[in-house]
C-alpha cells in the first residue's frame, strides 16, 4: 500500500515544529474538527462501498501515522523542555542545614541509671530518703553516738534552728538504710543513690557530692555474698571481666565486720583504668550490718542479718569515663557537659549494655 499523498506534507510539518504550540497547530490542521485528515475521514461516508474499501485503509493509515508522529514529536519536545528546565533547577546542597540542638545527660545521672539497671538484675530496688536528715538517722541509729570520733570525721553541715532532733545535711546515704529497714519487712535488697554533703572543699573534695548505698537484709547473708555482689557489680559497671577486688579489714561504726574494698588498676594509654592489678585503689566501704543498727530499726538481729556498702557515684563516673576534676561536675559548663555528657538515647539496658 502506497502512502497517502498528504503524509509527506504533514511529516514535514511535524518535523518542522519547534515547540508544543507549533506542534498543536499541526495537530489541528490535520486531526482537528475541520482538519484535512478529519475531512478525508468524513468523506468516507459519501463514497460507494467499493471506493470506500479501497480508500478507507489509506486514510486510516494516514491518520494513524500522523497521530504517531505527533505523539513522538510531543515526547521529544517535552523531554527537551524538561532538560532545559532541569538545567536551570540547581541548588547548592553543600550549604549547611539548620541544626537541631543536641542536649546531654549529666554523667552523674547516667551512672545512677547504669547502677539502677545493674542492681535491678540482682533484685535491688532503688530507695530514697531526705537530704536534710535528723541526726538520729544520720548518726545515732547507725551506731555513731554523739561522742564518737567518727562524727567529727564527717565534717557535718548542721541545719540552723530549733528542731525536735538536731538536723544535718546527710553526710552519707546510709540513713536510707535505716529508713528502708524501718519502713518494710525483710528480706530487703535496696540501693540508695543521692546527694550527700560534707563541709569540705578543696581540689579533690566538694561540699556536695553523690553516693550510692547498697543494703541486703535476709536470714543467711554472709560476707561471701557481699564479696560476690561487689565483684559482680564492679565487673558489670566497668564492663570488664578482669576487675580484681581486694577486701581489707577496716572500721565503720555501722558494720561489723567491716571491709574496705580496693579495686585493681592498670595503666592504659597513660591513664589509670580499672582492671588488672598493677596497683590498688580504694573504691568502696562495706561490711555486715552491725547488730545494733538492725536492732535500732526495730528488727531482731538474731533473726536478720545482711550487708551494706557505699561508694561515690561521682568517683565511679570519673573512673569509668575519665574525668579528672570533681569540681567541674557542679559548674554547669556547657563545654564540659558536651564533652562528658551522654545523649538522650544512651539509656543503659541489660541487652544494649550499661556503658556509653
Amino acid at each position: 500500500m502506497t502512502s497517502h499523498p498528504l503524509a509527506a506534507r504533514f511529516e514535514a510539518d511535524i518535523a518542522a515544529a519547534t515547540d508544543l504550540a507549533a506542534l498543536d497547530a499541526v495537530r489541528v490542521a490535520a486531526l482537528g474538527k475541520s482538519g484535512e485528515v478529519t475531512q478525508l475521514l468524513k468523506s468516507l461516508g459519501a463514497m460507494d462501498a467499493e471506493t470506500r474499501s479501497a480508500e478507507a485503509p489509506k486514510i486510516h493509515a494516514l491518520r494513524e501515522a500522523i497521530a504517531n508522529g505527533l505523539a513522538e514529536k510531543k515526547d521529544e519536545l517535552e523531554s527537551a523542555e524538561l532538560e532545559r528546565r532541569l538545567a536551570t533547577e540547581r541548588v547548592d546542597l553543600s550549604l549547611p542545614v539548620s541544626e537541631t540542638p543536641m542536649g546531654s545527660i549529666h554523667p552523674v545521672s547516667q551512672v545512677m541509671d547504669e547502677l539502677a539497671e545493674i542492681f535491678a538484675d540482682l533484685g535491688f530496688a532503688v530507695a530514697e530518703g531526705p537530704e536534710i536528715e535528723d541526726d538520729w538517722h544520720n548518726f545515732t541509729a547507725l551506731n555513731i553516738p554523739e561522742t564518737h570520733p567518727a562524727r567529727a570525721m564527717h565534717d557535718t553541715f548542721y541545719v540552723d534552728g530549733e528542731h525536735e532532733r538536731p538536723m544535718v545535711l546527710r553526710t552519707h546515704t546510709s540513713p536510707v538504710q535505716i529508713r528502708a529497714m524501718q519502713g518494710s519487712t525483710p528480706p530487703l535488697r535496696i540501693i540508695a543513690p543521692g546527694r550527700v554533703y560534707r563541709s569540705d572543699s578543696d581540689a579533690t573534695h566538694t561540699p556536695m557530692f553523690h553516693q550510692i548505698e547498697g543494703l541486703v537484709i535476709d536470714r543467711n547473708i554472709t560476707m561471701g555474698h557481699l564479696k560476690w555482689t561487689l565483684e559482680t557489680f564492679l565487673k558489670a559497671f566497668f564492663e570488664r571481666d578482669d576487675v580484681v577486688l581486694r577486701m581489707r579489714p577496716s572500721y565503720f561504726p555501722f558494720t561489723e565486720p567491716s571491709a574496705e574494698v580496693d579495686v585493681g588498676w592498670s595503666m592504659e594509654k597513660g591513664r589509670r583504668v580499672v582492671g588488672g592489678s598493677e596497683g590498688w585503689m580504694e573504691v568502696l566501704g562495706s561490711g555486715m550490718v552491725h547488730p545494733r543498727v538492725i536492732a535500732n530499726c526495730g528488727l531482731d538481729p538474731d533473726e536478720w542479718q545482711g550487708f551494706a556498702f557505699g561508694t561515690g557515684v561521682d568517683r565511679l563516673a570519673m573512673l569509668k569515663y575519665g574525668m579528672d576534676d570533681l569540681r567541674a561536675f557542679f559548674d554547669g559548663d556547657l563545654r564540659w557537659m558536651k564533652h562528658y555528657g551522654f545523649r538522650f538515647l544512651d539509656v543503659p539496658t541489660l541487652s544494649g549494655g550499661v556503658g556509653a
Partner: protein
Amino acid sequence: MKFSLSWLKDHLDTPADALAIADALTRIGIEVEDVHNPAEALKPFRVAKVLTAERHPQADKLQVLSVDVGHGTPLQVVCGAPNARAGLVGVFGGAGTYVPGSDFTLKKAAIRGVESNGMMCSSRELQLGDDHEGIIELSADAPVGTSFADYAGLDDPVFDVAITPNRQDCMGVRGIARDLAAAGVGTLKALDVPTIEGSFDNPVEIRIEDAEGCPAFFGRVVRGLTNRTSPDWMQRRLKAAGQRPISALVDITNYVMLDLGRPSHSYDLKELTGAVSARRAIEGETVIALNEKEYKLDPSMTVIADERQVHDIGGIMGGEHSGVSDTTTETLLEVAYFTPERIARTGQKLQLTSDARSRFERGVDPAFLDDGLAVLTGLILDICGGEASRVSRAGQPPVEARRVTFDPARTLSLGGIDVPEREQISILQSLGFQFEGRDAVVPSWRRDVDGPADLVEEVTRIVGYDSIPSTPLPRREGVARPTATRSQMIERRARRAAAARGLDEAVTWSFISEGEAGLFGGAAHMLANPISEEMKYMRPSLIPGLVAAARRNVDRGAASVRLCEVGRRYLTDAERPTVGIVLVGEKQPRSWQSGKARLFDAFDAKADVLALLEAAGAPVANLQLVTGAGETWHPGRSGTLGLGPKTILAAFGELHPRVAKALDAPTGTIVAEIYLDAIPVPRSVERARPAFKPPALQAVTRDFAFMVPVGLAADALTRAVRSADKQLITEARIFDRYESEAGLSLALEVTLQPGDKSFTEAEIVEVSKKIVAAAEKLGAALRG
C-alpha cells in the same frame, strides 16, 4: 601513725622484712599508707677516711684530699669544707652518686685544674640536718669502706599507717606488734616493766573531785633530775614518728604514748601549789594550753588543777604555766584515766585536737596505769637521773572485764569462712582474749569488742578476707523485675525528654545565698556552719543556681544556653523533686535560610514544659494556663500550667526584671520550673489499649476569624469554640493572630468529624452558628 621497723622489733621478734610486714598490716586492717626507708637514697655513701689534706695549688679555700674509701688505691678529692683535714673520718660519695640534699649527680671532674673523684658530704647534702658548715665527722673508729647508712643506723624503714577509730590499742607500736604476732608475723616479746618502789612519799596530794570524768589519777614525783636533751635513739624514733624532740621529759612522755599508747603528763613541780585534783572546770575559768592558745572552760569539762589554777585540760592538753622546761628539776607525773565521752565532748567544744585526746576519747587501756607509770619513771630515772617518790593513787580505773559469748559457728554464718574452732580460739588468745567456758573475756585494751560480731571480725581479719569465698546471692526465679518507682520513672523520662529537646543537664549546688533565696520566697533551711555565705541556704528554687551557671557560660562566650536540672527544692514541709530550665540567647543562630538569629522567648519555655510534662505522663490536654506566675515573675510574660488553682504543675516565662537584675541574669533569660511531684497518678494502668476504630468519613475543616477584645486569651477562645459542639468539633486551633488599630483578630481552624453520614450544608451552617455564638459570649465578633 608512723614508726620505724627497729622500733617495732623492740616488741616483735620477727625475721620478716618491711615489705612482708607492710603486706601483713594491710591484710589485718592496719592500712599502710607508706613505707619509706631513709637509707635508700644514702646507699652509695660510704664511711671514708681522709689520709692527707694539701692546699689546692690554684685556690686558697680548697684542699686536695687523698681519701681512703676502703678498697683500692686512695682517691683524690677536691674539698672546700673548712673542717676537712688529715685523719678525719667522714662520708664519701663517688662519681655517679646522686646527692639527695643538693639534687645533683657527682661526676669525675677537674676543679681548678685538679681532678676530683667524688665528694666528702655535709649533713645537709645527705638530708640529715641543716648543717652545711662543714663535712660530717664520724668517730675515728668508724669502719672505713662500710655503708654509712648501716653504720649510722639509718637503714630503718618507716611505716606510716592509718589506725581506724576503733583501735586505740594500735595507737601504740606495741599494739601493732601484738596484732602482727596474732597474724603469724612473729612473736610478741614480753614487756619490760621496771619495779620502782620509790624512796619517799609523794609530797603532792592527789585528789579526784570528778570521778565521773576522771575515775583514776595516779601520780608520783621525781626530784633531782636534769631535763637535758633526750638520747639519740629516742630522738631518732620520735623524728621517724613525725615528732619534734623538745626535752627529755617531754620526749619521754611522748615516747611512752607512741610506744605503748599511754598518754601522760609531767608538771613542773615548782609551779604547783598545794593539792592537785581532777575536778570540773568552773564557768568562765581559762587556761593557756601548751599550744599557747587560751581556752575558756565550763563545768562540762574535767581539768587538773591545783589550789590556784587549772594546769591541764584533762586528757587533752597541758597548761603552759606548769609545763616542764630546761630548768625543771622536780616533776609531778600524771597517769590518769579519763572517761572517753567526756574527752570527746570537751575536745569538740574547744575544737582542740591532740595526740592525747585522740587516744583518751577512743579509750586507753584502763589496766595499764601502774605499769605505764613504772615505764615512764624508769625512762626518766635512766635519762634524767633523780629519785622517784612512792606512787599516789586516787580512784579506780574501770577495769572490770567484759565477756562476750563465743559461738565458733558465727564465723561461717556471718563471716562466710569456715575456720576450725581450735584455730579460732588460738587467734583470739593471741590477741589477748581468754576463755571461760563459752565466754571470751575481752582484753582490757580492746574497748571496741562487745559482741559476737566483733569476735567474727577478729577471726576473719586475722585469717584474711582473701579467704572469704565469693558466694552468689540467691536469685529470684525468672527475669529481673522492674524496680524503679513511679517518681523515679518520672524523673528519668523528664530528664531524657529534656536532653532530646536540646537541654543540657547540669547539677548545681543545693545551697544558695541569702539574697538568691530571698528572691524566691526565702529558704526554709539555713546551714549553721556553711562553707561560705554563697552556700548557706537550702534552695527553694532551682532557678538561681541555673541562672548563675547560665551567666558563667555567657561570660565564657556561649551564644545559646539551654540548661536544665532535675533536683530537689527544700521546702518547710518536704524536699520536692523539680525540673529547672534556663534558656538564654539564641534559639536559632542566624542562617542563610532564616536570616537573623531568633532569640528565646516565653513560648520556648512553654514548649519545653509541655513536652517534659507530656513525657512525664501529665494530662497535658487538661492543663489550664494562668498568666502571671507570681512575684518572682514578669506579670505579663509568665504563666503557670495547672489542673485547678491548687495543682500547679509548672511555671514558666520571663523573670521579673527586678529579680533578673538581682540575679545578674543575662539579658533575655527565660526560665521554667516543673513540679514533678504535682503530676497526678494516672488512673489506668491497663496495658491493652481500646480497640482501634478510625472514623469512616474524612473530617472537614472550616476557618473562622474573629475580632476579639484585646485582653482575651487565645486559649479561652479556643476552649469556647471547642465546647460549642463537643460531639462534632474534634479540634480547634489558632492559626493566625493579627493586632491592628482596628483591634485584635484571631483566626481558628476548626475540625469537624462526621459520623456515619457526610455533613449536609445545613448541618455545617448549624454548627458554624454555634461556634460564632460561643465566641460572641466572649465578646468576639465574626469578621465579615
